């Protein structure tokens, strides 16, 4: 047994951390936060040059062909740095959907561009309020033309293409749903940028009016693919969340060591120490659940659905817990725009919702554990 990343993978993490600390300091995040850019283009190009965008994409499609464990360590660093780029939508959602269900031609068309930083992709799943569910999908596909509206679509305003979930049947079953690939620069697509909790990452509304689309995967298999994509993305995003949680903990710890009140560093008060200790506990539990998720993802294990849900819940809780208490430890300063604490708080709460909320994943986890139990 070796329940840890390899030395090479750890080395890659160090490289990613070094690269991001130079290319993605808080100042760069703030450029996007303040609305001066939709995303950090230089950083995106840099990530492509480092080979990070295509790390899990096979070599024949322009990637590094390394694997998902490597992608996990990079995801953690992206979360730590709050990288203001469409990494999760392009790499965890669009690229994973293509790798799972795309034809050779579709992979050949998009994957090399993703790896090179020349195409941004996303998944257009939600249609307003609610969690992932085939019933919630109303957008229709007639032949190769899509009609309907999707929101929120992560990074939808800057994406070049989207994987779109559409209704192709009306039996009331999962088989009613199919996936389509849409070139968002084509006709019949209207894009509207939406305001959101975390301006360092965009959200959009996409309206399709007879938009030209091509099927991704077989008709009626859309929901199965989406479930798999969400599981994979859940593990990868959980690593981002753990990276963010760890950084928020460090910020709180550092501030507690420096800030003096009542003649002592506030970190010498037990009330503050115990807050920070509890942050460490939740971040550690989340990291361990994530490692299990990484193992399941990298080996495509039968345990992946359960492991992904556990990683998702645990990492979401840890990031929210660490981000909110980091502000608490900072006192009034934590509540200013100038201090970075709120950027972590925003990201923590935005990532808590993107792939379906925690209550959705709680339900999924117990459902999956129960099925496994019944099968055993």
């Amino acid at each position: 047994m070796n329940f840890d990343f390899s030395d090479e993978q750890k080395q890659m993490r160090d490289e990613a951390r070094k690269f991001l600390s130079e290319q993605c300091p808080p100042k760069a995040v703030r450029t996007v936060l303040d609305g001066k850019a939709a995303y950090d283009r230089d950083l995106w190009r840099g990530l492509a040059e480092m080979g990070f965008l295509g790390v899990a994409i096979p070599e024949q499609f322009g990637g590094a062909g390394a694997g998902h464990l490597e992608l996990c360590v990079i995801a953690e660093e992206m979360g730590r740095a709050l990288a203001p780029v469409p990494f999760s939508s392009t790499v965890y959602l669009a690229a994973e959907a293509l790798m799972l269900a795309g034809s050779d031609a579709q992979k050949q068309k998009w994957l090399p561009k993703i790896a090179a930083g020349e195409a941004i992709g996303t998944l257009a799943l939600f249609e307003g309020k609610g969690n992932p569910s085939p019933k919630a999908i109303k957008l229709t596909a007639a032949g190769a033309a899509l009609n309907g509206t999707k929101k929120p679509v992560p990074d939808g305003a800057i994406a070049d293409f989207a994987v779109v979930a559409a209704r192709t049947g009306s039996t009331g079953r999962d088989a009613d749903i199919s996936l389509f690939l849409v070139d968002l620069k084509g006709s019949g697509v209207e894009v509207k940028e939406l305001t959101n909790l975390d301006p360092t990452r965009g959200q959009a509304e996409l309206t399709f009016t007879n938009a030209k689309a091509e099927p991704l995967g077989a008709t009626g298999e859309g929901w199965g693919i989406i479930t798999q994509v969400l599981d994979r993305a859940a593990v990868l995003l959980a690593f981002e969340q753990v990276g963010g949680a760890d950084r928020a903990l460090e910020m709180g710890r550092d501030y507690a060591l420096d800030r003096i009140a009542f003649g002592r560093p506030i970190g010498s008060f037990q009330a503050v120490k115990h807050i920070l200790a509890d942050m460490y506990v939740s971040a550690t539990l989340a990291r361990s659940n994530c490692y299990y998720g990484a193992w399941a993802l990298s080996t495509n294990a039968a345990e992946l659905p359960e492991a992904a849900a556990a990683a998702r819940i645990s990492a979401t809780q840890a990031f929210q817990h660490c981000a909110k208490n980091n502000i608490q430890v900072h006192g009034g300063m934590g509540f200013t725009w100038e201090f970075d604490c709120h950027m972590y708080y925003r990201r923590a709460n935005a990532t808590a919702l993107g792939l379906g909320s925690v209550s959705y994943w709680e339900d999924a986890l117990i459902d999956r554990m129960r099925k496994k139990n019944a099968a055993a």
Partner: protein
Amino acid sequence: MNFDDTPQEAAFRAEARAWIAANAPKQYEEELRKSSLGRVQLKNANILEVAKAWQKKKADAGWACLHWPKEYGGRGASPIERVIWQQEEGPFGRLSAMFIIGHGMCGPTMMAFAREEHKRHYLPPLASGEKIWCQLFSEPAGGSDVAGLRTRAERKGDEWIINGQKIWTSGAHYSDYGILLTRTDPTVPKHKGLTMFFLDMKSPGVEVRPIKQASGQSDFNEVYFTDVRIPDHQRLGEVNDGWNVSLTTLMNERMSIGAGVSTGFPELFEFCNSLMLEDGPAIEDRSVRSRLANYAVKASGLKYTSMRAISALSKGERPGPENSIGKLVAGSMIQEVAMYALDLQGAAGVLSGTDAELAGKFQAMLLRAPGTRVEGGTDEIMRNIIAERVLGLPGDIRVDKDVPFNQIPTKGRA
């Protein structure tokens, strides 16, 4: 990253599995499997005898205290082999409960500080379960603040004379030996005047009085010492260096308690899986699922945290204070899990023992849980350890640190 055995590990596992299949007391397997929480009991047999017999059988075949050196009754096995053994031993491992303090804390302290002849004499029967050991640290005046203890050891020639009182000593009533922390110099600050010994619990002047716990059972005791004589060669470490010696014990305590800690989650999940509520199966209720999921990720988080620790150990890295999280998380969790299991039973949750659902398993868990949050370091002490040793935050302001022990106040409100 993988969970696969290496060829050597696979061979070791096969050997362990075959030996267990051929030798374990299978007549108790079902009962042991079910009695996972808190106190292990057997209906038609004396648990102490069954446990001792199993331990002796293991020791004779070289399967006891696997990580200890062979000459002291162990097997010289690697950390991973020890884990594999635990996985294979399964429910029979629960028979080791009464050896945990001896194997996990007293043994390692003896190994680090006792004379060679004592190690060879005392450790093998400790490993084989023929002799049981207890830990005599806590006192009425010193639990969290164990360095505040007052039991005196005074030197007289080649002997030490012990007078005082210990409390909360688990298993003292069936123990043969104990490691004992005493005060040898009250005129210096508290950490600097302590000395460690080991002693025979049958020594004249040792009196053990069981304490009835809040849970109704009596697993721990008061131990009184009246002019008890301990030869100087049973001293562990230097005179007045007992604090450093005790740190070895406490570090091992956290490892052994943290590793095998139960959370109550598997039991709760199984319970909810079969429980019918008014509107249908409990497991289909969204609020039940939400609670279960929250416990599930804590339980799996702990499980994989210990797997990470084992991986680190197998690479020769030393497990650090981050292992404190196991007991901290599991202690409150088991308490909450028990309360929730009773909540699901409604008014009938108030019943206990054989009158209750599942023979009162969750009620017993509820009543035992408070002890878990206190023994082996309270929740608050665990948080202090994490804050100070893992996160590097300042230590508490210690008003008694540089004060001679005999000048520290002994009462709170007048």
